[in-house]
């Protein structure tokens, strides 16, 4: 019962991650790649867009795996906190790819007017700041989960189940 519920939750988390980290960005960028506008030329690194699409797929797949691990882990467990930290680090790497691939600065040429450049660097740094704070909170979560298990604030259901089974096996049930 516990395992089935865990796997179901993991699949749900993985599906959400697949949509938000792979399908939506990949579809969006694929549409932008083939976008043709009159009188406006978006000169953002078209030569780099294939590289971005590759990293969206590759890092997105890893994010889906980590999301499955996080979703399938039971409450108050250390591995849930560890997977949360891994997901935050994965998100940081994923976001950095956009900057790394040159999508944070988009030059746009308007015919008969000139050229403007939209810079997302500050927005990127802000996103990284939020990711860093989330990472610190995840580390804090790991510490709390270890402390709770040591203090006895939480108790292991698996341990209780094993003890009950051992009691039944030692003759309690068959006497």
């Amino acid at each position, binding site marked *: 019962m*516990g*395992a089935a519920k*865990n*796997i179901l939750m*993991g699949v749900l988390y993985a599906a959400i991650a697949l949509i938000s980290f792979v399908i939506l960005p990949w579809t969006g960028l694929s549409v932008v790649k083939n976008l043709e506008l009159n009188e406006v030329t978006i000169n953002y690194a078209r030569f780099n867009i*294939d*590289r971005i699409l*590759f*990293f969206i*797929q*590759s*890092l997105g*797949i*890893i994010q*889906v*795996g*980590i999301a*499955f*691990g996080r979703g*399938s*882990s*039971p*409450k*108050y*467990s250390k*591995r849930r906190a560890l*997977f949360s930290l891994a997901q935050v680090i994965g998100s*940081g*790497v994923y976001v*950095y*790819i956009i*900057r*790394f691939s040159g999508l944070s600065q988009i030059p746009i040429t308007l015919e008969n007017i000139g050229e403007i450049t939209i810079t997302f660097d*500050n927005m*990127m*740094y*802000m*996103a*990284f*700041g*939020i*990711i*860093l*704070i989330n*990472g610190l909170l995840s580390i804090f979560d790991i510490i709390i989960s270890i402390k709770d*298990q040591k203090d*006895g*604030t*939480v*108790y*292991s*259901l*698996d341990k209780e*189940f094993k003890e009950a089974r051992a009691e039944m096996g030692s003759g309690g049930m068959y006497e």
Partner: protein
Amino acid sequence: MKTPSWLKYGVPAILLGSMIQGMMLLETGDPLIDFLSPIMPFLGEFLNFFASFIMPFGQLLADNLIGPTIELLPGEGTTGLAIYFTIFAGIFLVSMWANVMWKPRGYDLTENKEKQEDEEESGELSVIAPDEEEDLSGDEVDEVRDIPGDEDAEPLEPPKDMPMYTDIPEDEMGIKTESEEIFSEDDFDDLPIPVEDEEGEGDSGDQVD
């Protein structure tokens, strides 16, 4: 009378909004943008304050930690997606093993367990003794009488003893039989004594007069 919250907060908000709207000189023609644009400076200030606090952390993380890590990632030309799929499969298998074979049940709060145990104990203690049960049943009858509009109703009689059906004969149980209960010796004392006439024929008491 208490002021409704929509009046207390809604009306000043509308007045303030219309004042700011009136101060706005530039109009784009789009109703949504025209409505939102006066609020934008406030939102911008808030975001700026937030960003000035957050951005140094982000810069630290991006330039010193993630940047060097990214350069280690294999590109499309070397192995393609194979290495990423391998990592994905590894994470997936480890989490499956942990959640199916190792510890699938996880943890629960000890507080919940104690509460549950207390409830179970209190459930065992709440078994009512027979004497107390009679008292409680009396209380219940009183509660039933307290129906509004039913004050004139006659008080309910206590329930009569129901007959017992057992295999033990009634004589052995020390209980009077049905015939003894109906016709006890005292009942016959009140009956008129029949008077014999001269002919010796017995007659009923009514005919004496």
